[in-house]
C-alpha cells in the first residue's frame, strides 16, 4: 500500500498543538478551534473516505500516522459520530457526512482527527 503523504509538522503544529483552525475539506464546516488539540504520531488504520464499490464490499483502508488528539468531545466545534463499530465511533463532518475524519475510542472517550483528512486555515 502507498504510504500516505506526511504533513510538515512546522506548518501545522505549535507548542505540540494545532496551530491553525481545522475545517472540513469539502464544505468548510469548522471542526476545531486553533490550539485546542494535541498533535500526536501513532499508526492507525482508517477506511478511505471514498470506497470503490467494485471491489466486492471489502472495506479499503490506509495507515495514517499523524493525528490531533482531543480528550473531551465537547472541545469540537462541529463534528459527527457514527454508531459504534468494534469499540470505535468514526468521526465525520457535522454538515456533509464526509469521513472518516478520524475516530473516537469508547474506552478512553478520546477522539483522534487525521491531519491529512482535514483542512488547515
Amino acid at each position, binding site marked *: 500500500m502507498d504510504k500516505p503523504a506526511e504533513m510538515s509538522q512546522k506548518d501545522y503544529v505549535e507548542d505540540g498543538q494545532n496551530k491553525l483552525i481545522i475545517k472540513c475539506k469539502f464544505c468548510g464546516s469548522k471542526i476545531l478551534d486553533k490550539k485546542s488539540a494535541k498533535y500526536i504520531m501513532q499508526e492507525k488504520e482508517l477506511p478511505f*473516505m*471514498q470506497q470503490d464499490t467494485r471491489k466486492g464490499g471489502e472495506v479499503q483502508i490506509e495507515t495514517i500516522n499523524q493525528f490531533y488528539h482531543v480528550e473531551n468531545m*465537547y472541545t469540537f466545534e462541529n463534528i459527527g459520530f457514527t*454508531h459504534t463499530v468494534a469499540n470505535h465511533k468514526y468521526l465525520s463532518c457535522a*454538515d*456533509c457526512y464526509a469521513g472518516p475524519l478520524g475516530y473516537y475510542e469508547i474506552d478512553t472517550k478520546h477522539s483522534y482527527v487525521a491531519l491529512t483528512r482535514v483542512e488547515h486555515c
Partner: protein
Amino acid sequence: MAKKTYDLLFKLLLIGDSGVGKTCILFRFSDNHFTTTFISTIGIDFKIKTVELRGKKIKLQIWDTAGQERFHTITTSYYRGAMGIMLVYDITNEKTFDDIVKWLRNIDEHANEDVEKMILGNKCDMEEKRVVSKERGEAIAREHGIRFMETSAKSNINIERAFSELAEAILDKTAGREADADAARIAVERRPSRAPPARACCS
C-alpha cells in the same frame, strides 16, 4: 487543567416515523457522492454543533434516532438527559402526522417532564404532494402548547432556525432556573433576620 471552552451543553433528540427526514435534517441534505460512502453505511449516532446565543457559547449534542424503532422500543434510556426534542412528520404523508400524537404520549411517559419540544412538518418543498396543511400542524402544536415550524431539509428551509429556537427556549428555561436558585439563596441568607411577614392587607 483544560479550560472549559463553552458555557452550556444541551442534549437534543430527533424523533418521528421512518422516512420523515430526521437524518437529512441532522445533516445538510445531500444527494451527492458522500451518501454512499463508508460513513453512511454505518450511520450517524449524534453530532456536536456549536452555536452562540445571547453571548453564550452553547454546545448542542444532537441525537438521531431510527424511526423503525417505533414508539414502544424508544424508552427511557433514549430520552435520558434530553433537554429538547424535535418531533418530525412529513407533510406529504398523513400517517406520519397522525403518529405525532403517539410520539407525544411516548415522550410524556419516558422523557423528562420539563423537556422542551418542537414539532417540525418537514419536506415543505414538496408543495404539490402536500397532504397535511400547515394549519393542521399549527393546530396540533397549539393544542399541546408546543412550538411549530415547517421545514425542508432539501431546500434548507428553517433548519438552522428550528435548532436555534429550540436551543433558545431551553436557554430561557435554564436562565429562569438560575434566577430561581439565586432567589432561593437570597431567601436563605435573609432568614436569620427573621423579619415578620408583611401583612399588607389585613392588619
